[in-house]
């Protein structure tokens, strides 16, 4: 062999060794834990999906900065607010080797997506669906940090504090909203309130006939709205035109938010909605301050409850994955096992998962739009201000 060929062989050997070393180094440094995010970023739930995604990203950022040993890598797929797309997204994420899934919005999308995750042996964690069937259908690796019972407690508690004697419920026929409306109907009825209910199709755009019925026939003290942002706008606008003689307009999710205050300043004054955070946000714990600081750095705005939920669900998942990785049980159902062992104080209170995957301790708060702020007005222990009552937007 000539010197020339020997030189080439050495060069090739050196190149091979360098490549192998680099590969080895990168695999040693990249204790990278891949987590799937299946979430609506387009379609009817895009607004809420984007809000949750912000919290998920904040959780990954905080986790990666505070846990030196492990790094979370998020792989995000938009489910376009459609059940079939949600299944496809989960299957694709499973194919890409993610360790678990976080995200999901809308019970109708979450149920099939969680089933797909279950089939792939993946943990699925969410805060985007409150339908009780999600946790009542025997899903093994499904976890949820909020539930309809928490919303119900808050709504019932608020009306108790108001000493309200009658309420008209206006609710969307979607699964989660209808389920909450039925539960509230029972709970308020059991407390002696006069309750009337009006279901509406999600495609409805003119709410005047419903509000007129409530105004002329039901004559309640409170109107409870169980729907989504576009429904609230339609209902409040119709109520502003017809001016029923009520003492309060109360809604649920996506209502007592800075976004609604900013986008619809004329419609939301004095309106109540579930809210874990006042606006401007106030955090007192170290975890809360870190969340707020990171959120502001990444998104240049105040955090809202959607981000807060996304953050909590994802942080609990990341921590469970890290614990399973440390124990070497990642491939042996370790993530689900660690999730079941979770018992932690979080930004939404203490979280522990029951046998069905539901958070045992979840209780929501009620907020009220007061001026350009959102004040927490229920429960009294968490209140940042007194409620304006009676008071309506018009």
């Amino acid at each position, binding site marked *: 062999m000539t010197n020339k060929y020997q030189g080439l062989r050495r060069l090739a050997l050196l190149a091979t060794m360098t490549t192998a070393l680099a590969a080895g180094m990168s695999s040693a440094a990249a204790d990278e834990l891949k987590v799937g995010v299946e979430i609506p970023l387009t379609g009817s739930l895009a607004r809420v999906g984007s809000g949750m995604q912000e919290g998920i990203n904040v959780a990954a950022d905080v986790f990666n900065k505070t846990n030196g040993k492990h790094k979370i890598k998020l792989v995000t797929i938009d489910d376009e607010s459609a059940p079939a797309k949600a299944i496809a997204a989960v299957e694709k994420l499973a194919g890409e080797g993610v360790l678990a899934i976080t995200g999901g919005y809308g019970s109708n999308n979450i149920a099939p997506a969680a089933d797909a995750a279950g089939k792939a042996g993946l943990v699925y964690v969410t805060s985007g669906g409150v339908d009780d069937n999600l946790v009542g259908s025997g899903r093994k690796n499904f976890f949820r940090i909020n539930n309809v019972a928490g919303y119900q407690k808050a709504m019932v508690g608020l009306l108790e504090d108001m000493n309200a004697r009658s309420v008209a419920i206006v609710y969307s026929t979607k699964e989660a909203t209808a389920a909450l409306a039925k539960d509230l109907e029972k709970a308020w009825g059991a407390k002696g309130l006069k309750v009337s209910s009006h279901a509406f199709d999600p495609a409805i755009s003119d709410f005047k006939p419903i509000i007129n019925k409530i105004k002329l026939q039901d004559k309640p003290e409170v109107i409870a709205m169980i729907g989504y942002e576009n429904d609230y706008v339609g209902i409040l606008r119709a109520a502003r*035109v017809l001016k029923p003689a009520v003492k309060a307009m109360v809604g649920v999710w996506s209502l007592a938010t800075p976004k609604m205050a900013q986008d619809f300043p004329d419609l939301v004054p004095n309106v109540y909605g579930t809210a874990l955070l006042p606006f401007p946000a106030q955090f007192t714990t170290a975890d809360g301050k870190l969340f707020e600081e990171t959120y502001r750095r990444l998104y240049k705005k105040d955090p809202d409850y959607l981000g807060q939920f996304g953050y909590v669900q994802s942080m609990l998942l990341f921590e469970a994955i890290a614990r399973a990785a440390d124990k070497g049980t990642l491939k042996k159902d370790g993530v689900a096992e660690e999730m079941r062992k979770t018992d932690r104080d979080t930004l939404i209170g203490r979280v522990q998962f029951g046998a069905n995957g539901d958070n045992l301790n979840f209780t929501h708060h009620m907020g009220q739009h007061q001026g350009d702020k959102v004040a927490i007005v229920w429960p009294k222990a968490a209140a940042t201000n007194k409620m304006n009552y009676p008071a309506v937007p018009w």
Partner: protein
Amino acid sequence: MTELILQALYSGLLQGGSYALIALGLALVFGAMRVINLAQGELVLLAAYIAYSVESGLGLNPVLAIPIALVVVCLTSAIVYAVVSRIKKDREINSLILTYGIGVILTNGMLLIWKADIRSTSSEWLQEAFVLGPFYSMRSEVLFFGVSLLMMAALWWWLSRSWYGRAVRAVSSNRDAAKLMGINPGYTELVSFIVAGILASFAGVALFSYGVISPAYGGVLTVKAFIITVLAGVGSIPGVLIGAVLLGVAEALTVTLASSALQELAGMGLFLLVLFIMPNGLFGLRARRG
């Protein structure tokens, strides 16, 4: 109860006016070209977003967005025509798929520009209650109901009195015969698309002034427009108005007398009932003869 029913009839009438404005464009293009433009709802929505931008960006009343909406939407409508006309000689299903695809592109374009947040006017003037005896509505609803009637009258005049309108009707009745009479079918079809764009512009600004918009809403509008067009009978302008008002009133009465959960079902029930009894729609035969 009387008060409730009167309000339902009034609300249904106003709602029908806005439906008519959306449906007319679809009916016109279908009449002229036998193309169901599944992007018509998105064109309406595009005008609505222009109104939103004028209000939020320039701080003006959204009604002032009409001239800008007319230019942008008519241009977009003409582009839709340019694409559709290239394949329209093929099977009708092709144009259907094509316009659906254009609708998807428009939806995603709007999503990129205006994001997924729901939008609605903040104009106090437009949202102010308009009370007429026992009837309650928003000022914008009455305003655009009037606009809707004016647009329909103008369309009727244009189709029956103007040369271009007559040419559109001639092409709609018999394309080959119209050609022999010296009418350029391609040109009249383009004019139909532009007029449909004008109607969509007004409908979109109206929609923004009293409703809620989001990029995904275009499909819902197209379905409503399609139901009304079939209900009315192809090519009938008065039929579209009557069909739209019937749909609006049926929906409002269902909400008042039964349940609002059944509103969409009522519309679909009315649609099927009319088709079952009158397969050509309410004014189908008359329109064909006319």
